[in-house]
C-alpha cells in the first residue's frame, strides 16, 4: 500500500528541527494484512475471542494509576483515563471528553511484569532418603498470554527484552515460556505524555514490528471508532473472526495523520545521532557528579523501565534444613550489592552507579544487542522520586565538545 511521502516518519523528523535518529532507528511501516473499522462493541467481542485461549492482560485502573493486569471483559480496561506525566509526578484523571478512549501514555507498571516476573522460584530441592531431589518449578503460564493495549514504546521494549532473554545464546526459560505464542494488540499513540520521547528513539508513536493487531483511534464526532490493522496471520484471523465493518479507503490515511501529529507533540526529545560515542567520550564528565548528588540510588528508574531485566538470586532453606529453594528477584544496578565481588562492591559511588545505568541504556546496549536499551517511554523520568530526567542528563554529557582525558576504557571505575 503506497503512502504519500508526507506521512513517512523521516519527513517529520526534519520538522522536529533536525533531530535525525541514528541509522536504522526507523523501521519502514509494516503493511496491514487486513483492516477493519472497530466500534466499542467489537472490542468486547475481541477480548472474548482472545480470552478463549489466552490470559488477557490490559491496562486497568488501580490505586489512582493505570497498571497492567489480567482482565476478563473489555469493561475492565482503563478507558477514559488521561495520565499527566512529568518528572516525579503522575496524576490520573478521567475527563468526560476522553471517555471510551484508551488510557494515554505508558502504564505505570511496565509489561515486563508479566513476561519477566519480579519474583520467581527457579528451583526447589528436598532431602529424601539422604539424597537431594530437585523438583520442577516453573513450567510457564498455563495459558498463552495476550497483551492488549500495548503502546508502541512498550511494543519495542518487548523486542529489546527478546534479544537477551529469548533470542540470545542463553535464553531465559521462564521468559521464553511466557513469550511463546503470545498475542499482542498495540495501540498507536495520538496523545503523547509530558515525559514521552519515543519519536526520538524511533519506537513510536507508530507501532513498529511485534504486534499482531495495531489499533489507531480515529477522531471525529459520533461514537468512538478505531482502525484495526492486522500485521500477522494470527491478527488477520482475528479480524476475520470479528467480522467488523471493513475499513474505508481513507481510514488508514486518517489514522496515519493522527499518529503523525502526535510525533510533533512529544513531551521530550533526545538527539540520538552518534549518541553512544558522544556519551562514552565523556566518562569523566562533571555532570555525572552533579546528577549523583541528586540521585537517591533507589532504583525506581530501573524497575519502571520496560527493558531493564537484571535479577539476583537468593537461596532459601527451611529451619529443618530439609528443603532448599532458589528465588530469583528483580535487582537494580543502583544497589550497592549489585556490583559486589570478592572484596567489595565495584560501583560504590552513586556517580558510578548512575553512569553505569545511563550509559548501558543509551550506549553499551548498542554494542551488546545492536539497538538502544531505551525506547523513550519516559517512565524513568516520571517515576524517579526526585525527577531526574534521562534526556537532560544524556544531553548534558553528550553535547559537550569531545575532550581529551580518560574515556570509558581507561577511566577508573568508582
Amino acid at each position, binding site marked *: 500500500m503506497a503512502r504519500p511521502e508526507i506521512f513517512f516518519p523521516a519527513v517529520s523528523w526534519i520538522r522536529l528541527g533536525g533531530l535525525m535518529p541514528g541509522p536504522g532507528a526507523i523501521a519502514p511501516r509494516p503493511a496491514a494484512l487486513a483492516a477493519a473499522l472497530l466500534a466499542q462493541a467489537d472490542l468486547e467481542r475481541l477480548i472474548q475471542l482472545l480470552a478463549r485461549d489466552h490470559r488477557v492482560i490490559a491496562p486497568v485502573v488501580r*490505586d489512582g494509576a493505570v497498571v497492567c493486569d489480567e482482565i476478563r471483559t473489555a469493561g475492565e480496561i482503563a478507558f477514559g483515563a488521561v495520565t499527566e506525566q512529568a518528572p*516525579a509526578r503522575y496524576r490520573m484523571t478521567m475527563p468526560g471528553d476522553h471517555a471510551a478512549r484508551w488510557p494515554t501514555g505508558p502504564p*505505570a507498571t511496565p509489561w515486563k511484569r508479566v513476561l519477566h516476573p519480579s519474583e520467581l522460584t527457579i528451583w526447589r530441592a528436598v532431602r529424601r532418603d539422604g539424597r537431594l531431589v530437585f523438583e520442577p518449578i516453573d513450567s510457564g503460564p498455563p495459558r498463552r498470554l495476550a497483551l492488549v493495549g500495548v503502546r508502541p514504546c512498550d511494543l519495542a521494549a518487548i523486542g529489546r527484552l527478546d534479544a537477551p532473554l529469548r533470542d540470545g545464546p542463553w535464553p531465559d526459560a521462564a521468559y521464553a515460556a511466557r513469550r511463546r505464542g503470545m498475542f499482542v494488540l498495540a495501540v498507536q499513540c495520538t496523545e503523547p505524555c509530558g515525559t514521552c520521547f519515543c519519536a526520538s528513539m524511533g519506537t513510536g508513536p507508530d507501532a513498529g514490528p511485534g504486534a499482531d493487531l495495531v489499533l489507531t483511534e480515529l477522531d471525529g464526532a459520533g461514537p468512538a471508532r478505531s482502525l484495526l490493522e492486522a500485521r500477522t496471520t494470527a491478527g488477520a484471523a482475528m479480524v476475520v473472526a470479528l467480522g467488523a465493518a471493513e475499513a474505508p479507503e481513507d481510514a488508514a490515511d486518517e489514522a496515519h495523520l493522527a499518529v503523525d501529529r502526535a510525533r510533533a507533540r512529544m513531551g521530550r526529545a533526545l538527539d540520538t545521532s552518534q549518541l553512544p560515542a558522544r556519551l562514552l567520550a565523556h566518562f569523566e564528565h562533571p555532570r555525572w557528579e552533579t546528577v549523583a548528588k541528586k540521585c537517591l540510588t533507589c532504583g*525506581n528508574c530501573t524497575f519502571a523501565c520496560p527493558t531493564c531485566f537484571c535479577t539476583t538470586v537468593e537461596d532459601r532453606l527451611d*529451619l529443618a534444613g530439609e528443603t532448599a529453594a532458589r528465588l530469583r528477584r528483580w535487582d537494580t544496578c543502583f*544497589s550497592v550489592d549489585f556490583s559486589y565481588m570478592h572484596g567489595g562492591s565495584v560501583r560504590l559511588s552513586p556517580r558510578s552507579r548512575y553512569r553505569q545505568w545511563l550509559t548501558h541504556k543509551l550506549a553499551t546496549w548498542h554494542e551488546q544487542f545492536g539497538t538502544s536499551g531505551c525506547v523513550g517511554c519516559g517512565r524513568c523520568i516520571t517515576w524517579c522520586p526526585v525527577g531526574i530526567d534521562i534526556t537532560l542528563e544524556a544531553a548534558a554529557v553528550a553535547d559537550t565538545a569531545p575532550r581529551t582525558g580518560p574515556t570509558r576504557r581507561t577511566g577508573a571505575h568508582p
Partner: protein
Amino acid sequence: MARPQKPRLAVWKFASCDGCQLSLLDCEDELLAVADRLEIANFLEASRAVGRGPYDLSLVEGSITTPHDAERIHAIRRASKVLVTIGACATSGGIQALRNFVNVRDYVSAVYPTPQYISTLNKSTPIADHVFVDFELRGCPISKTQLLELVTAFLHKQKPAMPTYGVCVECKRRGVVCVAVAEGLPCLGPVTQAGCGAICPAFGRGCYGCFGPKPLPNTAALAAHWSEAGRRRGDIVRAFRTYNAAAEAFRRESEAHDT
C-alpha cells in the same frame, strides 16, 4: 545416633516495648520447629525459667538508657557466642532516642512526680555502641520472615539473606504504585533499608523509615526535593526523627533542618 546437644537460645530485653521479642512468639507455625532445633534457655516472654549461660545465640531487644543496663549488656555479651540485636531500639536507640535531641532532665521532671528516683542516661544508645554485635535485625518491629531467616542461617552456618537496598526495591517488586510520585506523599522508601516488604506504600502511605537508613542513603537529596515541593522544615525534621531518629544518617539529616 544421639542428636548432638541443641544450641542454646537466649532473648534479652533492654529499653523497648517487647514487640520485637513477640515476633518470635508470633512465628506460630515455625515456633515448634525453632523449639525443636534450639534450646530456649532464656526467654521471659515465653517462660519464667532462666537457664544459665553460656548461650549460643542471644537475641537482644531494646536500647541502653540506664547506667545499670550499660553494665548488664557486658555480662550478656560475655555469656553469648553470637549476639544479634533485634529491632530499631537495639540497632539505633529507638523512638526513645528522641531524648538525645533535648535535655532529658526536662522530660524527667515533666513526667515523674518524684524525679529524684529516676536514674537515667542522657542518651538512648544502640547496643553496638556498648558491645560487639554480630548481626543486626532492623525494623520497628522486626520482620518475622527475617527473624526466621536469621535463625535458619545460624543453625545451618550460612550467611543470612538480608537486603541491603532500599524499600523502593521491595515496593516496585510488589507492583505498588509509588505514592510519592502518584500522590505527592512524603515517602522515606528511597533512603530506608528494605525488610518490611513495603507495607506502608502498599496501603497508600509513605514509608516511615522503620528499618532505618539503607547503606549510603542520599537523605539530603530527598529532603531537598521535599523542600522544593513546599514542605516545611519542621515536617522534614519530624520525618527523619521517628523510630530511627538516632541512626547516624537520619540524625544528621534531621539536625540539618532543625534550626
